[in-house]
Every structure is written in C-alpha cells, then in structure tokens.
C-alpha cells in the first residue's frame, strides 16, 4: 500500500473513532459491492463501520413475476433475448436457462443492438428490458429501432425513498450509484435527508466516499457530494433522459424484496405499443399470470437486498445455494451480494 493511501486510511480511522458509535453505510450498486470485496475494504475499515449492500443489482431486484412472464412467453414458442446476467434467475416455474433446455428459443445478448439485429431473422423476438437508468436509454433506442420489449425497467430514487421509510433498516449514509448518476445527475438525491456520496468503482473511490460520509456525520451535514465528477455531471446526461422520456412513462413497479413501489417503474408509452410485449401479447401474458403459482422458497434475497440481513444470515447460503446452483437472484448475478460474498469468502 502506498504511503498516501496509508495516511488516508489513518484519517478514516481517526474520524470513525471521533464519531465513536456504530455506523452503517449502504452501497447502492452491485459493482460497488464487487469493488469492496475485491479490495478487501471491509477488513481495513474501523470496527464501528459496517458496509451493507442495498438494492443496487438490477437483476436481483427484478420480481419473480417478470421472470415468469418471460419464461411463459419462451415456452409458448416466442423467441426471447436477454442479458446474460438474468438467464439463471429462478422464476416460480423455472429460469430462462431451464426454459432453453426445454427447447425454448432463449438468446443471450451482450448488448441490445444484437437484439435489434436478431429481430431481422426472428420478427416476433421479445427482449427482456431490465435495469436502472443506466440501461433504460439503450432499451429506448432499441424500441425506436423496432425491437419488441417486455419492460421491467426501474427508477432508482424511489427505492432509496422506500429504504428510508422502512424503520427496520438502519442507514447512516448512502454510497450512491456511479453510472445511474451519470444519467440522472446529482440534484435528484437532495430530497433524501441523509449523508450521500456518489462514487466511482475503484477501491480508492469507495474509500473516498466513506471518508466524505464520515466528514458529513462529524459536521452534522446531510448533503449529496459527488466524488465521481470525472463522469457524473450535476445535470447528468439530458440526451439519454430525453430518449427515455420519449419512449417510457412512469408507472408502479414490483421489486423483489420490497413489493410494489409507487412510481418506481417504466412502461412503454402508448405511442410505441406495437413494440410493447405487454400489449402485443396481452392475452397470453394474462393467461401466464393466471396459471403461474407462487412457489415457496427459503431464499431470503429480498431481505438481503434491503440490507436487513447479510448473505451469511440466510440458511441456504453456501449450502443449498451457491453460484453453481443458485436458489435466488442474489446468488445468480455476479453483482448480487450473495454471489460477491460467496466468491470472495471462498
């Protein structure tokens, strides 16, 4: 470790000692969870700082009912395309990977332009649109280029509000997501009266965020600071937001673990409904929803996503549930807190 970093860590320890009470900081992006684990940050922090993961993994917060719809469409002979992260997430019936093994036409794409290309050969292809503001602009672009989409897209700030309203959750500060913020900017977070720092994704970025949170707590401030200004601008990316607003409108959405959060989702505007799978396949989707029965599971991903428990508190973790045999979304996605915890602890 270089001397600059060593001195910096010393300052973090001094500040934490000065505060002298237990502190819970929540990171809100799965890539932060990865950076924290990869750099062993939890091991070098003062004892009174606990880092918890929040709902920052888009695959993880996608509700089972949305997986069920995509699996149902695929099993009814409609070709589907999906980002690789989501293919193994178990639905109530099965995952998209299992549907593929059962003969369904399930295609993995790295980027959505591959979906637009694929449509030329498979005109009824349905793309599974999921993710936060970072990926929504791309989906909007693809819809404008003729791709049919089932939208499970979500807005990030309403989830932060839901977290703050849940009295079971203790949070002293948020490490806000870097790439979501690149789109939405910094000012939208000012409504949340809690110390917040927008951070990039290196180990140093995370340490800077923690240091700034400590400084705010010492001074009694509750503001938004931008420690990722090399990318994140005050106004974010207006061009991407314009593209999103052109194609999508705000709606309620169901999040795994949280349930329904008002105004937290994005549905495709009527103007583009010929590319909205919920409209194009409305009869089939309502049949799928009626026929799917909820399967009970001991998986506690929902509580992990809210920072109520840590991965290790789940009885399945590392036993029945591991990356080769994931029981829930938090273990499926590489950014899921259970996957990160498992990979770096073993």
């Amino acid at each position, binding site marked *: 470790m270089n001397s600059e970093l060593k001195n910096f860590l010393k300052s973090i320890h001094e500040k934490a000692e000065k505060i002298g009470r237990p502190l819970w900081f929540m990171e809100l992006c*799965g890539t932060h969870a990865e950076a924290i684990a990869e750099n062993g940050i939890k091991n070098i922090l003062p004892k009174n700082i606990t880092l918890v993961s929040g709902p*920052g993994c888009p695959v993880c917060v996608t509700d089972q009912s949305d997986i069920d719809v995509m699996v149902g469409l695929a099993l009814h002979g409609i070709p589907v395309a999906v980002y690789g992260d989501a293919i193994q997430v178990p639905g109530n019936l099965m995952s998209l990977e299992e549907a593929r093994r059962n003969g369904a036409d399930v295609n993995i794409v790295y980027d959505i332009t591959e979906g637009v290309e694929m449509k030329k050969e498979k005109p009824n292809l349905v793309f599974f649109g999921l993710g936060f503001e*970072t990926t929504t602009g791309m989906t909007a672009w693809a819809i404008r280029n003729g791709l049919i989409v089932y939208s499970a897209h979500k807005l990030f700030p309403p989830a932060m509000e839901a977290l703050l309203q849940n009295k079971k959750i203790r949070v002293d500060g948020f490490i806000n997501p870097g790439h979501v913020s690149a789109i939405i900017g910094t000012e939208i977070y000012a409504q949340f009266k809690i110390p917040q720092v927008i951070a990039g994704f290196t180990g140093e970025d995370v340490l*800077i965020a923690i240091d700034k949170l400590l400084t705010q707590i010492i001074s009694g401030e509750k503001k938004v600071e931008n420690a990722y200004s090399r990318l994140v601008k005050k106004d974010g990316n207006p061009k*991407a937001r314009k593209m999103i607003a052109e194609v999508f409108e705000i709606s309620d959405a169901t999040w795994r673990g949280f349930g329904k959060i008002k105004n937290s989702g994005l549905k495709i505007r009527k103007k583009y409904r010929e590319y909205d799978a919920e409209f194009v396949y409305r009869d089939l989707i309502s049949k799928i929803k009626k026929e799917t029965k909820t399967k009970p599971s001991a998986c506690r991903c929902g509580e992990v996503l809210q920072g109520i428990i840590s991965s290790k508190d789940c009885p399945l973790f590392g036993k029945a549930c591991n990356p080769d045999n994931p029981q829930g979304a938090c273990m499926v996605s590489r950014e899921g807190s259970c996957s990160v915890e498992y990979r770096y602890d073993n």
Partner: protein
Amino acid sequence: MCLAIPGKIISIKNQLATVDFDGIQKEINISLVSVRAGEYVMVHAGFAIEKMDADYASEMKGYLKTELKAGV
C-alpha cells in the same frame, strides 16, 4: 450490470463510433451522448453512456493530496 469501461473516440460514423480501449478498438453506439472524436466516454453494454474527463486519475490523486495537506 454497471460494469463499464472508459475509452477514447477515434472516429464517428452516424450513430457509431470507433472507440479505443487501451489499444483494443471496438464499435460503440453513441446515440445517447453528444461527442466528438478525441473525447473520452464511459461505455456500458455497447453504448457510450456519458462523456468522461480525459484525465480520469486526477480526481483521486487530487483528493488524496488535499486531504493530506489539510492534516486530517
């Protein structure tokens, strides 16, 4: 899903740009940003999501220096 990589725009043709990632060049969709050749962008899942400062290490170095100077 937020894993993204910074790269430098070499050339632009309509909605596509050739972007250099430390010696590896790839075609990237630039429909979501307003950029010119020579500028840096953050790329995620085949799209440039936002422009980026050219000297991306400066923020961190700057912060560490000021914090240490302040004697905290």
